[in-house]
């Protein structure tokens, strides 16, 4: 019983740390490990608009 409780607690901790941030630590999504794809994809779209419209 005790072992199952510990396993559940560990699982909950893993889920919490894998979400964007841990509570009370506003910088916990580590941007140094986050790739730049979201920025690059938006710029690619902006370049396409610029090429079509200028």
């Amino acid at each position, binding site marked *: 019983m005790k072992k199952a409780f510990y396993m559940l607690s560990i699982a909950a901790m893993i889920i919490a740390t894998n979400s*964007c*941030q841990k509570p009370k630590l506003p910088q916990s*999504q580590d*941007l140094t490990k986050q790739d730049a794809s*979201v*920025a690059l*994809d938006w710029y690619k779209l902006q*370049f396409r608009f610029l090429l079509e419209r*200028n």
Partner: protein
Amino acid sequence: MNGVYFGYLGIGLYESIRYGIKNSSSFSSSLYQMPAMPSIENNETYCWTASANATMASMIRYFNSGLTAANLASIDSLENFYNEKINIQTSATDFIRSQAFGRSVATAIYTWSKSDSFNPTNTGYVAPVFDGAWVPTPPAMISPPASPYVSNARPFLMANLTAVAPPFPFAYSEDTSSDFYKMEKEVYDVFQGLTTEQKNIALFWVDQGNGLGYTPDGHNMLFVSQAIEKTKVNLAIAAEAFAKSGIAERESNIACFRTKYKYNLLRPVTYIRKLIDPNWLSFIPTPPFPEYPAAHAFVTAAVVQAVTDLLGDHVSVTDHAYDFRGWTPRTYPSLFSAAEEAGISRLYGGIHYRVSISAGLNLGRDLGNMIGKIKLYDKQSNSNPNAY
């Protein structure tokens, strides 16, 4: 979207994620008349990818007026693509909070941009008349010249409120033994002996816009984007690089056009047709505004120099800007070598003097260095092995 708005786009991107960077500061503490940006709620969780996604989607809607239904659908589609990815990993409340923060940053940036007095028109401008002054150039003979009021736009740097480059080094002369004549003759002689490679370089950087290709601003930012992709830097570094290169794009345009309209120097085609060859035309179209300093050299140098500390100068980048035309991509051994090629392309094109290109490169490098030195956070405590 006018290319000079890339500065706002990059600043907004950085502000949307900057609370995720340890001990970072806002650009509002460094840039001229930039208002305070929205803050996050204390002790609440944020997903910075969600806030960046929301900021970029909102800003691209704000800054691109008159988008077609298909283009608006492309924005929705990209925003939804990232939202769906993020939703798998993030609680609904964290996602909504992050998205709201991102949208508030976009609104704050756009509101700020509306007071910047950027005026791309030439209405009412009268060009001065003197020996060696700019006059309309063939074949289009456009008049008044373009963008005379750009220098009135609010700069990002207080130091750039009135900055003007030193005067052109040679006094106007029609004497064949003068430095001025020799400088003009060089443009003519280069044209006579253009190699295929030189023609390719001139065409690659012609960037005439008007539905025919990128604008110079668009091409420069595309180059930075390819450098960011090549170096695989993280989102924090990429956001800073997009911001600083966008700031450099705008600042160099303001400083360059302020200088162009202070000295109002004539273009090579005017002098060469008067004194060397009455039927001569430059290899690429002569832009309809004064010559000195060379804007391609100035702006591209500023843009790449602003990100050199972040991405590294000795990064080989292949520029695929004109793949869509079937043109061979061009590879540069360093960021600054692309600026040097952009600069010399204008001599090959017959539209700039070598001395104006050198001045532009030097001015751009200095301005880019100033922007690159804006310190936003301690890189050591946010170390990234890909970037340093």
